């Protein structure tokens, strides 16, 4: 597996606040990777470090094998980036915005960018400030895709979108993946979206990767066991990730097949992605708190 984004002992501090701490990550080429984690986990910092908007305090990020600080100019022509809240110039029209994209990018495919905008029926003469949030998201994404990037990084691309706009944007992104096979990295809070489109998953907690892997393998390798509290951990086949106790009952998240047969009424069932993500996030957050 070739890595498009590779971090090595990557650390970023803002004063005394540690945003990322000693991260070793390799994000696979040609896949859609989801960055998940609580607010402040370091998702945005990681994306900004990859596109050279921030300099690491220690360690390094390599994108396509190039150092993100010293070789930014070799990276940027191949990278599409949409920042959180999808900043655009409010008084430009859609056509102006595409023209700006053409002038600012040495690699730019005007017909392709136009086709992306047209897919959503966005009128070219409309000013950005008259567009809905969903329409602005499509313009921002079209600009990021207009240079036919090999990698797109999107920071919360579907936040604040209504369900229809959200699905339309994901569908657009996935259609581009189907056509061009590009690498996508995006941060998200909505796990349903992550499960829908992300083949690879990175859960960041407190600036460190807590769980990394292929989404479907992670789902297949975890179970939830719900049983009486008296039951010992030894009866369960797998690594205990998290146990939550009620007075009489314990709910466990396990990595492994789970018990083959339990006679005490314990129910073992596949874990949902949400249960897995929460099961890894909660204990790590409690340790830090």
């Amino acid at each position: 597996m070739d890595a498009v984004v590779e971090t090595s002992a990557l650390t970023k501090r803002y004063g005394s606040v540690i945003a990322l701490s000693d991260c070793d990550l390799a994000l696979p080429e040609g896949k859609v990777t989801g960055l998940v984690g609580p607010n402040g986990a370091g998702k945005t910092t990681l994306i900004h470090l990859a596109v050279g908007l921030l300099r690491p305090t220690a360690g390094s990020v390599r994108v396509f094998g190039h150092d993100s600080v010293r070789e930014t100019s070799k990276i940027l022509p191949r990278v599409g980036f949409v920042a959180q809240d999808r900043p655009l110039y409010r008084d430009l029209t859609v056509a102006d915005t595409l023209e700006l994209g053409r002038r600012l990018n040495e690699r730019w495919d005007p017909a392709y960018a136009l086709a992306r905008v047209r897919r959503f029926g966005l009128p070219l003469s409309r000013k950005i400030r008259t567009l809905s949030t969903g329409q602005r998201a499509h313009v921002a994404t079209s600009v990021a895709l207009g240079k036919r990037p090999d990698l797109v990084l999107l920071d919360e691309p579907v936040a604040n979108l209504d369900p229809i706009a959200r699905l339309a944007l994901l569908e657009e992104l996935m259609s581009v993946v189907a056509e061009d096979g590009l690498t996508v990295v995006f941060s998200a809070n909505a796990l349903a979206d992550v499960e829908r489109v992300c083949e690879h998953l990175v859960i960041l907690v407190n600036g460190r990767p807590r769980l990394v892997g292929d989404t479907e393998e992670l789902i297949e390798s975890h179970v939830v066991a719900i049983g009486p509290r008296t039951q010992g951990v030894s009866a369960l086949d797998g690594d205990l990730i998290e146990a939550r106790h009620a007075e009489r009952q314990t709910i466990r998240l396990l990595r492994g097949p789970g018990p083959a047969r339990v006679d005490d009424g314990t129910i073992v069932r596949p874990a949902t992605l949400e249960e897995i993500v929460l099961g890894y996030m909660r204990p790590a957050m409690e340790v830090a708190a």
Partner: protein
Amino acid sequence: MAATLRFRLDPHSGVPTYMQLAQQVRHAVEYGILRPGDQLPTAREVVEDLAINPNTVLKAYRELERQGFVHGRPGAGTFIAADAPEPLERAVHTPLRRALDRWLHGAKDAGLDRDSVAALFTVAFQDAFSREESTHGRRR
């Protein structure tokens, strides 16, 4: 031309998306909804319908091909295999369904509510299938 099949997703099932897609194709074959030679929706069509990752669709189709349900013709699409398993015989299906109905009515008459019935079934189900599955190497 409309696609032969429309997939749907259950995000709360804990079943990986590609397995949900594969199960729906197998179900359609077992019930005779899809027959040998029928074309499955292209990855592109599924993406436009469900906004999922196209590689997930391809993974589901590879899994089905491995199981002998479909075969891919490069550049043409993915089709139900000529030697795909026959639809389930009604003669087999109907008595099983009736036995299950009787069991469910018995559970209701004994005073079990919906959740208790589901819990009981889940435990029995996992006892019956967990060993079989682990010997088939489904779960890692």
